[in-house]
């Protein structure tokens, strides 16, 4: 079985984002970029399935600028077999990403697509579910544990109030939550090897997909700031303040 893993290039999660003064977006100039952390977990899960003999090939796909090739190389250095870069400039909304991925699934016929549950830039949390709907496949979102069988997958999911287990008919879509696994670091020899692994270059037009955004971003602003308040000296004083504020 092939596993497809879409990976997104985003601002590194350690970077504090700054909103641009002209309110057109956040400042991406000279900012460290990295693979979306949830996608690293997706790559790791796919690799573990291949190492257990449950998958034959792991394909990393990225949709983005030429520089997204680095993100695919990261996946290849972790152990993915080959990459597909779909070159697109500017914002590509989840719906367009899902349409491109659907076309790739039609060609590659994977048994499983594992995606991060959301990208830490737009926080949309949509692509995996949209892809599942376009393909008519079942989905196991926010996966905490995955057990892959011959014709079905058992997924333990993180839900409000606890965990839920569902059984999915294959082929299926999985989206990863934080505690599914701890992604590995790429070793130096594997980073060198990754340079020789093939990456196919495509465009959205190759798949017949129009990536023009549907939503118009009118502005991007800073969130309202909270002011630091006062320090109190004792537990009794704290309770006094909370009573004065009328919250207890």
């Amino acid at each position, binding site marked *: 079985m092939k596993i497809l893993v879409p990976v997104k290039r985003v601002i590194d999660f350690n970077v*504090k*984002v700054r909103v641009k003064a002209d309110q057109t977006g*956040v400042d991406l100039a000279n900012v460290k970029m990295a693979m979306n952390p949830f996608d690293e977990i997706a790559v790791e899960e796919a690799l573990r399935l291949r190492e257990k003999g449950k998958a034959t090939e792991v394909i990393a796909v990225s949709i983005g600028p030429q520089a997204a090739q680095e993100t695919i190389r990261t996946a290849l250095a972790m152990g993915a077999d080959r990459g597909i870069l779909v070159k697109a400039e500017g914002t590509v*909304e989840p*719906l367009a990403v*899902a349409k491109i991925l659907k076309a790739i699934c039609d060609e590659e016929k994977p048994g499983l697509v594992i995606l991060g549950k959301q990208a830490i*830039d737009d*926080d949309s*949390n*949509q*692509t995996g*579910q*949209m*892809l*599942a*709907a*376009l393909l008519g496949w*079942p*989905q196991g*979102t*926010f996966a*905490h544990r995955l057990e892959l069988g011959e014709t079905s997958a058992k997924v333990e999911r993180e*839900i*409000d*109030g*606890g*965990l*839920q*287990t*569902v*059984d999915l*008919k294959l082929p299926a879509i999985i989206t990863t939550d*934080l*505690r599914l696994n701890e992604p590995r670091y790429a070793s130096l020899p594997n980073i060198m090897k990754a340079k020789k692994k093939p990456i196919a270059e495509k465009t959205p037009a190759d798949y017949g997909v129009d990536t023009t*955004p*549907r*939503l118009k*971003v*009118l*502005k*991007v*602003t*800073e969130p309202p700031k*909270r002011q*630091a*308040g*006062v*320090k*109190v*000296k*004792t*537990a*009794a*004083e*704290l309770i006094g*303040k*909370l009573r004065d*504020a009328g*919250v*207890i």
Partner: protein
Amino acid sequence: MTSLVIAEHDNRTLKDATAKTVAAAMQLGAPVHVLVAGHDCRTVADAAAKLSGVEKVLLADSAAYAKLLPEPMEQLIVSLAPSYDAILAPATSNGKNYMPRVAARLDVAQISEILAVESPDTFRRPIYAGNAIETVQAPPGKKVITVRIAAFRPVEETGAAPIENVSGPADPQLSSFVGEELSKSERPELTSAKIIISGGRGLQSGENFHLLEKIADRLHAAIGASRAAVDAGFVPNDYQVGQTGKVVAPDLYIAVGISGAIQHLAGMKDSKVIAAINKDEEAPIFQVADFGLVGDLFRLIPELDQELARLGY
């Protein structure tokens, strides 16, 4: 035309998230219908009919909807979509699961986790874990929206809407429910509690969360945790407040032994009043706290408990 709100419930009780999503839908200016999809859930439909501003409740009662699994929910909502201009669901783990499927089938861009309705086609939503706020305008046509429930006040319960039975296409049977482990607690749920007391790595162990339980019992508060406390195995993952956990906005948030990482602040900084107890006076949590108490929590929490007891809480 009309807006459709998808109800959040457990087949017995209607969740507060629904009343908050109706509040957001009312701001679109069109009549609001509520869809209750579930199994043996008539009481939920009765509760939804009482929500102020709701004109009609649609009840889809079938075993296929018992767990709101995304594949049959998609089919049902898409089959009802031709009558609606906007479809809204709370951004709960259920809403986040089925709504993008609906959007994809309708070929529209979903607008995720709106914080505010600026006008019927323009919305504010958080990006970068709430470190920036995006104002987006939707094109003419259907809108598919999820609502950040912490950002809206629930509507009142003074209505009496009619309930109409509906049914959807046959269950595609792509997935099946196996089981669930839900945290059993007498305390209020994190996302609807008026008071939350949360613990972080400073608590040092899962046993020490019992210290917080005493205070929580006195204040009828929910208990939360930072990601660090969850990752350390002190408490289950559904306690987590933060960017990748629950986003909450109670009247009072008490952070105990939590340093205040950006990812935690993203989940609680919209609380009305924040109190923080931490031994490190430089901890970032104090930059957002209305009231800060610097000191050893193992001494201060019992003191807090005694003082509350003295005052009759």
